């Protein structure tokens, strides 16, 4: 018998354990509502561990959710940033339009004074060389422009059109070395030719005795047949008289800031 038990010990123990568990199960099935001692003990012992584990889990989850993962917050942040960028961009556009409106209003006021038909144009390019002073505007022969038409800004004379293509034109600025415009000193009516010096202008052929002083305004004389009379060209910076020279040496600063020029008006046709 003993030998038999030893031989099949494993199976006997297995059957006994299985039956025991089945009995335990059967018992507890009948007493569902009661908490057994074992259960109570386990729960009591495990509770603090469970609590700290829960707290740790909450902490890690919170850390992950609130600081590391942050899917929602990040998404919201991105949405807000995008919205902010869009609003800022719109605000800038509105500001840009307001400034452009202001500039165009000044240009229109000038054109009203000149009393000649005019076409607004935008500057879209500058000269590709470092010595010539020309700009490209976005209106061309399709808009009725042709070589020789004067171009002005709100401050005064910009130049004249020298080349036209269907959709664009090149404008020779008054500061170009090959530009010459008949001009007169507004205060004293002294006549001369305004010549480009690259960044400044020079008034040539002003007689030695003519009264010209620094700060005097130069305007177009209307003699060349290109520019209407009375448009501002620049202010005298230096007026020097040489003992032996027949004419004065006069340097003029243009009234138009060519480095910040954006919109211009092309004057069309004759005076109304």
């Amino acid at each position, binding site marked *: 018998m003993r030998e038999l038990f030893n031989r099949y010990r494993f199976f006997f123990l297995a059957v006994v354990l299985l039956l025991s568990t089945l009995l335990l199960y059967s018992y507890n099935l009948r007493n569902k509502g009661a908490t057994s001692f074992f259960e109570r003990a386990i729960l009591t012992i495990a509770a603090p561990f469970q609590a700290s584990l829960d707290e740790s889990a909450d902490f890690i989850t919170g850390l992950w959710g609130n600081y590391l993962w942050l899917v929602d917050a990040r998404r919201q942040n991105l949405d807000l940033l995008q919205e902010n960028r869009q609003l800022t961009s719109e605000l800038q556009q509105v500001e840009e339009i307001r400034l452009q409106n202001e500039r165009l209003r000044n240009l229109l006021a000038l054109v009203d004074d000149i009393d000649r038909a005019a076409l607004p144009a935008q500057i879209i390019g500058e*000269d*590709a060389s470092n010595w010539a002073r020309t700009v490209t505007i976005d209106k061309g022969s399709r808009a009725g422009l042709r070589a020789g038409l004067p171009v002005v800004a709100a401050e005064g004379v910009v130049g004249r059109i020298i080349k036209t293509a269907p959709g664009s034109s090149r404008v020779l600025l008054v500061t170009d070395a090959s530009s010459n415009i008949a001009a007169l000193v507004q205060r004293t009516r002294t006549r001369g030719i305004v010549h480009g010096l690259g960044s400044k202008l020079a008034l040539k052929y002003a007689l030695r005795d003519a009264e010209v002083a620094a700060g005097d305004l130069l305007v177009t004389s209307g003699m060349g047949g290109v520019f209407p009379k009375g448009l501002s060209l620049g202010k005298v910076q230096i007026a020097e008289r040489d003992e032996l020279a027949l004419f004065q040496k006069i340097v003029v600063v243009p009234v138009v800031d060519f480095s910040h020029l954006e919109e211009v008006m092309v004057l069309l046709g004759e005076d109304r």
Partner: protein
Amino acid sequence: MRRFLLYLLIGIFFVLLQSSLFPLLLPAGLRPNLLMILIVYLGLSENLTRAVLVALLLGGIQDSFSGTSLGLYVTVDLVLLLLVRLLSTHLNTENPALLLLLIAGGTLVQNLLVGFCLMFFADAGPILSILLSALPQQLLANLLAALLMLLLLLRIQPMFGSRSGLPGLIYQSKRHGA
């Protein structure tokens, strides 16, 4: 034909940069003349017929975007190209400083030629003083731009498997084992 068109496209791109982008970003004196750099490069690395044809067209393009009359840069670029070609046969093309030296020389020669043409053919008034006052800045801008383009070219060339000889790029030949 493909290389010809490529140079033409690059030239148009350069002139658009010079006339539209650089004025927005760089002060007037510090805008490099990229087309001049391209002409010097053509003079050093392309066969004469192709280089001349491209230089003529690029000159015409540059004339369309600058100055008052067509023909000035056609002439100037052609002279510059021929001078570079003439000189390059007598120079040590393994010297890394050659291209930059030619760019510096090219800037001076180009300004001189422009000044000469404008003074003697166009009566452009005080053009010489304008050119001379802008020359130091122009020189600096061209050299910097050439240096940047050279570095860029070195990065790009291996991507396209191009091994065309470029004087002055001594470490390029090391890289390609040429």
